[in-house]
């Protein structure tokens, strides 16, 4: 009886109850869901998840003490900044995940898939790490998304690689001597530019285009 009363109260507040768990409650979700969707787009709350206010201010020792590889992911379009850890490794593809299930799959540091962002990169053909370091080399990229009506959409780009030069960059208060490579990609309707900072056979830092809705994502390899 108490449960039934509680239930009626819940319904009065425009949520629903029952054991029919297949369907989330309608109106409460409507309000909360809209707010959540907006938040995740604006403030990046979703990706930041359990991270403290400013990821960049965490001391390096704090991060290194776990003894596991850590990648920093910054999505400027939604002001998201998060530290992510490995959830899957298959050959040269490593999948990194936030605590709330947003994933980034990179092949040798080159982004090929995301999940959980909403406007995701569903799959991609991208240059290999070996191709990246050749000045003047050209390559073709193909990006696949879920577009209007959740239908698969494809974008093809012709890309040219330019070795910009040697640059010393700082990742979480540690200096790295890197080679900056620019990958400029064009198609009839527009152009995108990916930047890679290579440290030997490792992509130390990169800015890679992801999808029309997400734009660019910055990756920094904080702990190897």
């Amino acid at each position, binding site marked *: 009886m108490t449960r039934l009363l509680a239930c009626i109260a819940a*319904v009065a507040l425009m949520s629903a109850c029952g054991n029919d768990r297949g369907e989330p409650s309608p109106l409460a979700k409507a309000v909360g869901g809209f707010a959540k969707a907006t938040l995740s787009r604006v403030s990046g709350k979703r990706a930041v998840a359990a991270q403290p206010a400013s990821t960049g201010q965490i001391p390096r020792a704090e991060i290194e003490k776990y003894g596991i590889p850590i990648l920093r992911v910054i999505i400027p379009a939604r002001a998201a900044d998060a530290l992510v850890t490995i959830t899957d490794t298959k050959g040269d593809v490593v999948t990194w995940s936030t605590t709330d299930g947003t994933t980034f799959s990179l092949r040798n540091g080159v982004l090929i898939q995301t999940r959980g962002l909403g406007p995701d990169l569903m*799959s991609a053909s991208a240059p290999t790490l070996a191709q990246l370091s050749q000045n003047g080399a050209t390559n073709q990229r193909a990006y696949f998304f879920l577009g209007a009506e*959740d239908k698969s959409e494809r974008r093809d780009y012709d890309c040219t690689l330019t070795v910009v030069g040697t640059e010393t960059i700082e990742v979480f208060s540690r200096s790295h001597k890197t080679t900056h490579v620019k990958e400029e990609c064009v198609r009839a309707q527009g152009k995108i530019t990916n930047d890679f900072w290579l440290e030997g056979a490792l992509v130390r830092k990169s800015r890679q285009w992801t999808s029309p809705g997400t734009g660019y994502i910055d990756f920094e390899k904080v702990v190897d």
Partner: protein
Amino acid sequence: MDFSLRLLIATLAFGLAFATGTAQAEMTKSLNINGATGLIDMPSGDAQEDATFSFSTSVIGPVTRATISFQITPRLSGAFRFQTWRDWNTLFPADNTKNDDRSFDLRYQVLSEGRYAPSLTIGLQDFTGKGLFSSEYIAATKTFSDRLKVTAGLGWGRLGSYGGLGQPFGERPPLASDDRGKPNVDQWFRGDAAPFGGIEYKINDRWTFKAEYSSDAYTLEDDTRGIIDRDSPFNFGIEYQKGPNVRYGAYSLYGTEIGLVFHLVLDPKSRATGGVMGAAPVPLNLRPARSADPDAYDGGWVTQADAGPILRENLAKRLAVDGIIIEDIAYNANTVQIRIRNNRVDAGSQAIGRTARALTYVMPASVEVFEIVPVVNGIGASKITIRRRDLEELEYAADNASLLRDKIAISDAGPVPAYAIGGEDLYPKFRWSLKPAFRISEPLKGDVGLRLNAAYDIRPGLVFSGTIYKRLAGNIDRSGNPSTSLLQPVRTDGSRYSKFGDPALERLTLAWFARPAKDFYSRVTFGYLERMHAGVSGELLWKPVDSRLALGVEVNYTKQRDTDGGLGFGEYDYDVVTGHVAAYYDFGNGFVGELDVGKYLAGDVGATVSLDRVFVNGWRVGAFATVTDATSTEFGSGGFDKGVRFSIPLNWALGEQGKRAFGTTLRPSTGDGGARVDVDDRLYDSIRDYHTDALDPEWGRVWR
């Protein structure tokens, strides 16, 4: 007349002065106060973007108009409007102070705007109603220099009532009273034709100025009813665009009235959240290479007595994350068949992908073939056969969705394998919920209530279920006046059912779903089928998984229920056998048509045609019309049964996983002709989601 022509020329000249020659700019194709693409009260030659769904509500002094519009194809659009006139009896005092009208519009864009050519649209307004808002028009619109749009047009009917140029196609005959509710073909483009025109000037991305010269004399509101004093043909005002979905307008109308409008403009093709939300799937679990670990591929595990229950339990845990329930699992060393009930994931392909991912964790390495059978109402809808190696190879491949689609097979679900391990205790046999519910009878009219649902699965495919509805608030007609229909009031006593049956037992049924043969589906529902009728309903459907065509037959025997929402049949002594043969056809691009021929509830015989545009993300917008041998006098003011329906999935707006939708069916008037029993879970719509015509457009989500 002379004046209006001069104005038109002046307007055009004004526009041309700004012309730059490059006129392909994207100005908003805005809506007018009638919810049609246009100026202020006048239409324009523009069309909305394909599939745009908009809700507009406007107040013009004592007149309120609420309109739902849908861009059916890039050129064709339709609208349903609910209009109320307050102070209706200012000149003729009477009890009712309001008058209501419902109307349909159709418009077709003959020419889209080119470098030199304007867009050109031909439209019918209120073309099948009582004629209070009837008019026809052609309108041309040209954009100049990104900021200015100039529209000029010619109207008939209401839009030809002021400043007419003569009658190019002869006199407009009056609408005979028994032609009400039927297409007023005899009137189209007849009578006085009058020019109208105007401009839209984009001040910046948010603000737009509009001015127009109206050819609507408001004869009904001014001369006949005296509720609006029309002083001038000029209207002007400003509009404010707030984000992509909302637009407001405020205008000075006809020299004496203030007009306000609110538009909600939705694009069913794009999610409000920018993409499919929800957490990432688990990565696939790869098997060890056969050369590295040959023992892992040994099929000996099938002989272990407890293998089945363990596998089933582990799978159930993994699938529960996505609201997927196992009905049955059957396996041998090489193949597993899993029958799933997908309660939450809104895309069939995504549910299949998630199931396949779970299988890679649970099934021993020797299992190479995954057969996934989505089950709806206890019956298999289709069977998706995936080779495990293809999944493993394609997880991170570019364009993995198309590549995987080429390698899988979608076929008839077939019978449950004899060696299947049923999931007796895997899902709750008893389900219940108490939820807020809406009953919407027309735009701006509806009830909010509570609905208690309960269902008990006796076994898969045999369900005992019921619902009780209690109204909380709303403005649906509850007068309780007996119907004056000349036919049996199978529908028109709705106000009595609403008044006396609160709370009401809406439904209490035993439903049995089965697969009598390959490509055949069947349903038998017995009990209180809907709030007005009870009895037995049987249906048989033929639908191969990859066929665009489906054929069905339905037979019902029903008695009309008492209005008190209880179990009795004493109030009406009415029983009837009804039935239909049905053909369904998927025209592609989401257009699904249905033709039903048979006998309806009031004993009338005829046919229903319907066309729905079904979007892969769950949006659905459609229209239907029924013509039977019931005369239009018998049918009542609507002439024949027709209406529009729409359904908006909540996850489209909210981004959460879930299959709930918000929607309703709207009719200009409810009559007793052309009415069908409103039985739940008709077969075609329940199984179509898992057939190729629904799975393929959204197949990309298999990897989501």
